[in-house]
């Protein structure tokens, strides 16, 4: 890929992200997923943990924000190719010179960026309604962790979108996949509460490392070395996800063109 192609791809991705944001900003399902549901979860958690003191408030703000990120990734980014199929634009997108991966990356970028609203809303809930004195302990490290978390979530989205397209039977499990990740990734409580056999599964999920980094930097519970390790794990998993997704996209397009089933579910 030469420089000019990279610039064109980058511009396409940004344009796709902008158009996706414009299209979805008032979508009621997305408003629920990135705003209302995380707020309700934050409200529940703040209420349930109110006896634990204010040090847990920031943990809940970050954790409920992560639930919004995952729900958005699962339901919105996961369907980023299917929505084109449902609206009859998938054939056109496959036919344009821009790679489909670039387009889906742009869509996921918009969705995941949009879901950071959930963290902001939870912050306001805890600060304004519950009157907690909130602060991020390591703001620079937190910002870097958030950036890497967004990248790793987007990369994860690139894997699940073609899987949902090629395997409708997997998509039937979409609803059942939401809470297990909340649990296994320790968004709102430590995974030490879970049975030991689940720990290796948590380690294989990049949202787990994102949660460790964000919780660690927001509450000051992690040293720089630990945070650097979490970053390394997020980068590693992002690269693995991008590698896998490239092959999945190729397989999906070959299958679709060979079988002429782009529009068929």
């Amino acid at each position, binding site marked *: 890929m030469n420089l000019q192609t990279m610039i064109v791809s980058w511009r396409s991705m940004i344009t796709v992200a902008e158009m996706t944001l414009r299209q979805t900003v008032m979508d*009621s*399902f997305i*408003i*629920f997923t990135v705003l*209302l*549901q995380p707020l*309700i*979860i934050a*409200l*529940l*958690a703040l*209420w*349930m*943990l109110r*006896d*634990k003191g204010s040090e847990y408030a920031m943990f809940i703000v970050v954790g409920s924000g992560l639930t919004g990120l995952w729900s958005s990734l699962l339901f919105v980014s996961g369907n980023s190719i299917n929505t084109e199929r449902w609206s009859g634009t998938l054939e056109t997108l496959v036919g344009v010179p821009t790679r489909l991966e670039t387009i889906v990356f742009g869509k996921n970028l918009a969705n995941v960026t949009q879901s950071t609203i959930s963290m902001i809303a939870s912050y306001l809930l805890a600060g304004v309604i519950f009157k907690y004195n909130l602060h991020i302990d390591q703001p620079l490290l937190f910002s870097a962790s958030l950036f890497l978390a967004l990248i790793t979530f987007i990369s994860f989205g690139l894997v699940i979108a073609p899987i949902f397209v090629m395997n409708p*039977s997997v998509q*039937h*499990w*979409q*609803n*059942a996949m*939401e*809470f*297990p990740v*909340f*649990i296994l990734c320790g968004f*709102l*409580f*430590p995974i030490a*509460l*879970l049975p030991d056999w689940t720990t290796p599964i948590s380690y294989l999920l990049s949202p787990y490392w994102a949660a460790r980094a964000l919780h660690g930097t927001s509450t000051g519970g992690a040293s720089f070395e630990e945070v650097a390790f979490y970053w390394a794990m997020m980068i590693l998993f992002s690269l693995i996800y991008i590698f896998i997704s490239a092959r999945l996209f190729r397989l999906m397009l070959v299958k679709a063109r060979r079988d002429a089933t782009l529009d068929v579910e």
Partner: protein
Amino acid sequence: MQRLAVNLRLFGQGALLSYIALFHWLRPATYLASKIFMPLAQISFFTYLGTFATGSDDSSFFVIGNAMQIAAVSGIYGVTMSIGGDRWNGTLPYLFGTPANRLVVFVGRASIHIVDGMVGVVIGFIWGVLLLGLNMSQTDLPALALTILITTYSTSGLGLMMGSLSLVTRNVMFINNTVYFALLIFSGANIPLATLPAWMQTISKLLPLTRGLDAARILIAGGQLADVSTLLVGEFIIGCIYVFFGYRLFRWFEIQAKRRGTLETV
């Protein structure tokens, strides 16, 4: 007599067909995912969160609360989609063109979901006993079954009202999702109602599930049917009120849609 037979057939056929259409029985994976594993995941999440919050070894408060909340999955989502599906699938004009008894059609859509909701709650309790340490050795099981039946009925009443709303709004899933998650707070599934502010407790009392959930906790702690009879009567009455208002709304929508020609307007 003939009219009764026709209505009974209409009730049975409507209930069965809407249920088959909704869950795609030819694809059991959908059912397995939404009725077996989703409840387990949701109950586990709130139970772990609750035990982490309280630092208590006793998770029964959260297991019972969230298992009973499963009634609302069928009660709200299932019933709403059964009613609203006619609009989205373009069959509403035909339905309104038939001489079929509207109340039979309306309640028939909910009936199978009451049975399905009960199965969902039972599955929730089984998960609770098997995986989360719920002790049901002191439970009056027939009384608990009655509690589950009445609670599922009352949440289906709320679902019927939401289903009627789905005939006049395109944002019904937004409303459904919000109501379902709001029940997690207001029903007392995860927070003891006594700790809520007075205005929230007032809302709780107006909602289905609240009293049923209370009754289930008392029964699992060793209470008898007589101890919860007032709660169950209250839960049943709440369900009837929601069915009544849901049906009125359904009829109102039919009259308005016919008058204005907006049957399929979204």
